[in-house]
């Protein structure tokens, strides 16, 4: 549609007025909106058909004329312009089809928000402390407060029935062999952790001692060498792992202590979870506090006249005589001395009591082989204290015979070894010897007279304190036996570590001839040197071997729960005196 289809006729291009007349011709609807939308179309329509507009009416013609005149002046060209009739273009209305739509205006506004300000200030406070008190034991009401006649009458009433039941019970077989399981049964022995310290293993060090701490969550191991040779200048380590931590890394101990000499034995303090004592190859005894990683050394014996002159093979903690919450360290070494140390002052371990084993002073109740000329000292390699009598202990010796000793011995030792306290001779009874040196002894926690000893002859002897000959002798290995320990929960179970690389668990209730469970710790038969039961978590057993690894074994339930009448069976075993 061109704007230039101007005509010569008087009907010129249209202004807005004729549009309305066209609309009027179509019918009156809402004019104002039509103008907006159809303006263009209507304009074009009316422009294209000027002849129709001529018949619109006089008013329309006048408008046409005036506007036509005005617009005719616009272009100013004389006219070769022609009339054209163009088609109508129309855009149909869309909104008229949808008549139902009505627009409405709505508004909304949240109700005004009410705010208020307020302050608070504590005006007074009080401090209070809470402390648990030791429980006061409730006392028994004294008998005089009771209504004695009524009590007597009651007892008379029930006496008959109770006696009847007691007798019935005595003869009853109703519960023989009846066992109840309260916890989930673990059927096999599994290895929970394999722990090692790579720098120590790289140096070829062996694990010479393991120890659990008093809470049962930390296991520590000592690195050293147990074969022949002068290892006194070898630097070694004491490593501890906290098994309860989630971030346990088996190759990275929680604490590592560097020690100037090989450590031969290790023992955690009975009540302080972080104190640990170690005996060194050089004869020194050291006590560390593992909670202070930057300076763990607490006490040391130093190299004085009192110190051992031979490697210290075992250390144990003992309660002091008068203050049973304080502890002293006892060390045994192959120079024949058993020394009791007390930590005093600034890190010094002082000798409080000492014992020396001299060949001539050993009790002669057992025939021992004649000592070589010049050999007067009896080297001690292991010690175990009785759980029933705190001053009674058993020593294992290089000569292969265990010795029953007492801390209260008074006889002076015939030795020329210098010492700051008088050395006494502790031995009271000599037991029949093994075929080689004894490496480990263990006293039974359930029976006052029984103890085990194991040595290089591969045998384990079960002794009673009352006689020199062992009650029974078991051959466990063709190589050496390095450690033997009674189980802390099962009276008839013990574990032994052998030079063939396995840990043997014996249950004397099941079989007294062969081990109930044989755990292979090392693959290449390198020896297992030490083992310890965990007294808090009684299903755990830690064992250290010559490859420098400590394995924590989880025992099956049969080893952790006492069966019925085990203590009685143990008594029976002890009573079988082999004459």
């Amino acid at each position, binding site marked *: 549609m061109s704007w230039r289809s101007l005509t010569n006729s008087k009907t010129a291009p249209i202004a807005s007025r004729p549009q309305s007349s066209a609309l009027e011709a179509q019918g009156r609807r809402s004019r104002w909106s039509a103008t907006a939308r159809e303006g263009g179309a209507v304009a074009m329509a009316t422009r294209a058909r000027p002849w129709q507009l001529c018949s619109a009416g006089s008013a329309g013609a006048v408008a046409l004329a005036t506007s036509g005149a005005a617009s005719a002046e616009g272009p100013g060209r004389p006219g070769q312009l022609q009339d054209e009739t163009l088609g109508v273009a129309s855009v149909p209305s869309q909104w008229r089809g949808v008549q139902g739509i009505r627009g409405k205006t709505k508004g909304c506004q949240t109700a005004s928000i009410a705010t208020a300000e307020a302050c608070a200030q504590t005006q007074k406070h009080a401090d209070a402390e809470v402390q648990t008190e030791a429980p006061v034991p409730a006392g*028994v009401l004294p008998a005089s407060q*009771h209504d*004695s006649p*009524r*009590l007597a009458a*009651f007892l008379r009433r*029930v006496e008959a029935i*109770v006696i009847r039941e*007691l007798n019935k019970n005595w003869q009853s077989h109703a519960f023989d062999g009846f066992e109840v399981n309260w916890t989930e049964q673990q059927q096999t022995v599994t290895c929970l952790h394999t722990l090692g310290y790579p720098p120590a293993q790289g140096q070829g060090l062996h694990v010479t001692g393991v120890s659990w701490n008093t809470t049962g969550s930390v296991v520590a191991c000592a690195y050293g060498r147990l074969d022949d040779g002068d290892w006194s200048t070898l630097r070694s380590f004491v490593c501890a792992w906290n098994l309860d931590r989630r971030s346990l890394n088996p190759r990275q101990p929680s604490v590592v202590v560097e020690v100037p000499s090989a450590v031969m034995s290790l023992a955690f303090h009975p009540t302080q979870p972080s104190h640990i004592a170690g005996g060194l190859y050089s004869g020194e005894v050291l006590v560390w506090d593992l909670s202070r990683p930057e300076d763990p050394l607490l006490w040391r014996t130093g190299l004085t006249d009192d110190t051992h002159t031979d490697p210290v093979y075992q250390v144990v903690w003992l309660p002091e005589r008068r203050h049973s919450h304080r502890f002293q360290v006892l060390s045994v070494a192959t120079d024949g001395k058993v020394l009791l140390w007390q930590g005093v002052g600034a890190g010094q371990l002082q000798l409080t009591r000492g014992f020396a084993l001299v060949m001539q002073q050993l009790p002669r109740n057992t025939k021992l082989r004649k000592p070589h000329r010049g050999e007067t000292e009896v080297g001690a390699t292991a010690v175990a204290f009785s759980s029933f009598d705190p001053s009674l202990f058993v020593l294992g010796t290089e000569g292969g015979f265990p010795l029953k000793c007492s801390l209260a011995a008074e006889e002076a030792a015939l030795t020329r070894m210098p010492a700051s306290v008088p050395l006494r001779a502790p031995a009271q009874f000599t037991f029949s010897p093994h075929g080689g040196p004894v490496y480990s002894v263990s006293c039974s926690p359930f029976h006052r007279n029984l103890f085990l000893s194991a040595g290089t002859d591969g045998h384990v002897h079960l002794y009673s304190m009352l006689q020199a000959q062992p009650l029974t002798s078991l051959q466990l290995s063709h190589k050496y036996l390095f450690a033997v320990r009674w189980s802390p929960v099962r009276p008839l179970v013990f574990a032994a570590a052998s030079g063939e690389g396995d840990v043997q668990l014996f249950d004397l209730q099941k079989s007294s001839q062969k081990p109930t469970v044989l755990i292979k710790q090392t693959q290449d038969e390198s020896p297992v040197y030490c083992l310890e039961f965990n007294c808090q978590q009684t299903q755990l057993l830690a064992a250290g071997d010559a490859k420098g690894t400590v394995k924590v074994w989880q025992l099956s339930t049969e080893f952790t729960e*006492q069966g019925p009448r085990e203590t009685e069976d143990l008594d029976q075993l002890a009573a079988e005196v082999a004459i």
Partner: protein
Amino acid sequence: LLPDPSERAEVETLKRLQSQKGVQGSLVVNTEGIPAQSSTDNPTTTQHASLRHNLSWKTGSTTHETDPQNGLSFLRICSKKNEIMIAPDKDYFLMLIQNPTE
């Protein structure tokens, strides 16, 4: 200070019961759980008194509630290590620890 006859009688009865085969300890508690007579040391006594008394009461009341015509006559607890006999009454409870080994 001579013990009066009734006291002597109860002591004798208790002694008789204690001397039965396998009896390791005896204890008499009143209805509140306070021990009246005991043959074991104090901590064990108090522990047994409070714990076992509750158990006996519970057993007695359970029996009575399930059948009001019924009542507890005797309670025997068989544990791994020993057996406990409890004789209940309206005033007192008698507890005996027996170790029945063959």
